[in-house]
């Protein structure tokens, strides 16, 4: 699904060069649930930006869904973001003056899906996250957990192959966080690849694989076979 090989990313200012990623390589198989951990400044956000085609990189190669995405133009990258990638943000990033229905509608609009199908997808996705009764509420009228569920509904409606989530429970209390993780697990079980950056060992423990970053490199990959069983037993 996601193959990064020897990725290098340098942030430059007049005075200093910061090597955010240096020789970064990672393979994520289709249908995997991967947690990415590491201290602040280890390159987690840079990795997600590049993985989500929101930023360019200086060296190495990146294949997504078997396709080399290193040198694509803006329109092609936008199409991949729209069709293949779903983002879940720590701060939800709902558009404040759109209600839940219209927020979930945004990626479908850019895909050019017809009105009837859009409505069907939106109602289905919003129903799955339990927000049907809040369909026409603005984000400001929702709790943090409800906002994150609306953001997940936005991803569900778009039906991407890969979900990139950055601290999806970072702004939520423990009960809400568990609900969100349950939803992510459910989505992953349905076949969608999930790559999640988190500081929380509890959240990371629910992934099939944990990857640890330090100074822009992958330093450790944990793949405890027992974890899958424990996750299923939970």
């Amino acid at each position, binding site marked *: 699904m996601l193959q990064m090989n020897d990725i290098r990313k340098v942030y430059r200012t007049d005075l200093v060069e910061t090597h955010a990623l240096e020789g970064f390589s990672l393979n994520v198989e289709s249908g995997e649930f991967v947690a990415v951990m590491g201290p602040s400044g280890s390159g987690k*956000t840079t990795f*997600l*930006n590049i993985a*989500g085609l*929101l*930023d360019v990189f200086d060296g190495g190669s990146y294949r997504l869904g078997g396709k080399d995405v290193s040198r694509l133009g*803006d*329109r092609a990258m*936008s*199409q991949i*973001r*729209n*069709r293949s990638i779903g*983002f879940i*943000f*720590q*701060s939800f*990033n*709902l*558009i*404040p*003056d759109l209600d839940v229905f219209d927020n979930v509608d*945004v*990626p479908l*609009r*850019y*895909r*050019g899906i017809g009105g009837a199908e859009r409505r069907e997808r939106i109602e289905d996705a919003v129903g799955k996250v339990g927000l049907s009764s809040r369909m026409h509420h603005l984000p400001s009228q929702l709790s943090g957990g409800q906002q994150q569920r609306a953001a997940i509904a*936005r991803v569900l409606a*778009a039906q991407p192959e890969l979900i*990139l989530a*950055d601290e999806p429970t970072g702004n939520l209390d423990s009960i809400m966080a568990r609900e969100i993780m349950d939803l992510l697990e459910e989505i992953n079980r349905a076949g969608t690849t999930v790559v999640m950056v988190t500081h929380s060992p509890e959240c990371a423990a629910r992934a099939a694989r944990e990857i640890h970053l330090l100074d822009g490199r992958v330093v450790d990959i944990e793949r405890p076979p027992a974890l899958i069983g424990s996750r299923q037993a939970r």
Partner: protein
Amino acid sequence: MLAYNLRIAARSLRRNPVLTAVIIGGIALGICISTTFTTIRHMFTRDPLPGKSARIVYVRLDNWDKDQAYPKSAGGGNAYDVPPQITYKDASALVRSTIPVHQFLSYISGLVVFPDRSVSRPYTDRIRFTQSDFFLMFDVPFRYGHPWDRRADAAGEQVAVIDDATNQKLFGGGNSVGKTVRIKDRSFTVVGVLAPWRPFIRVYDLINNWSAAPEGIYLPFAVGTRMEARPSGETDVPRWAPPFGQDFAAALRSELDYVQLWAELRSPADRAAYQRFIDDYVRQQKALGRFPRPVNDPVLSLRELLTDMNVMRPSVTAMAVISILFLVICSLNLTGLVLGKFLARVPEVSVRRALGASRADVFLQHILECELVGIAGGAIGMILSSGIVRFIGKLITDTTVISLDLEMIASAVFLSLVAGFVAGLYPAWRICNTQPAVQLKI
């Protein structure tokens, strides 16, 4: 997608109504000024007689002094240094040409009109002595009746055409064909009543105040001669010509330039033939001791004459250009406001980019918003401009004759779209090049 982008744009405009109003107001001001001045220019430059202007020609002859050219007007018009009108004897000779399909002679005279005593006291009016083809060639609109015919021209019949205002004044309106109007010491039978008619430029007489309203009463040219109606408009006499005193018959034989000759020709070949006819006539007259200067008798089409007589002043074009530059400056000044408005929306744009909006989508969405503002500003500007051009029309010509026609409305809509585009181009380019990764913490 267009409808979706329009919805987003409309929502964005509603989000900050004060800022939106300021931007719309700026564009409205620019459109108002530019539309006002381009409309005034348009009134001067548009074809006064579509389809005919190239075929209708005006005759001038240089009967001026041998050692001194006819003086140019103060405005620099009259590139041919030739008197703008011709003598009665030349006009009478040239009008016999069979080359034109239509032609007429014309001059104005101030005469006393005697209404019915129960209606009004006698008053002096500027009366145009002309020929029947005048009405046909210049598309003069009739409400009742019709022009007199060529037979009436030849016989000098005492018939009259009056305008709508004169009809109201003398007869209280209505169909007055067949009624009698007394002018000076004669009675004239009304054969036609004009519909209200107020050309912006009185193109059939560019010599005697082209911006004035058309005359109220029209009588056959031959009657003017018979009545000894003296010209009351512009006249010229060269210094070499013998004096003619107060004798009207002598004036007709003299070098007094007061008659205007217009002709309508079928084709460029006819125009060339007509020019040769005029040249030949001048050469004949030179042989008889007249026309001391070299042959200089330009036959100009109506459009050429408008330029030569300097009706269309360069300053009018300059003002129109300056007004459009003003609109551009308004739009550029608004760029800062629009940029601020758009940059406040960077987080939303970043989310949209992450969800699949391309740079082109973002650019289009924001340019559409600017075009909505441009159209709203343009609509307000056009309404304001419409009022201002009417006011200016009253200042220039004492009656309202300037208005925004379809061409000017289309031009204003186009300028509104350009203004919106100019105001939004840089801000839309800036925001569509926003790096979403910088704004989004994913």
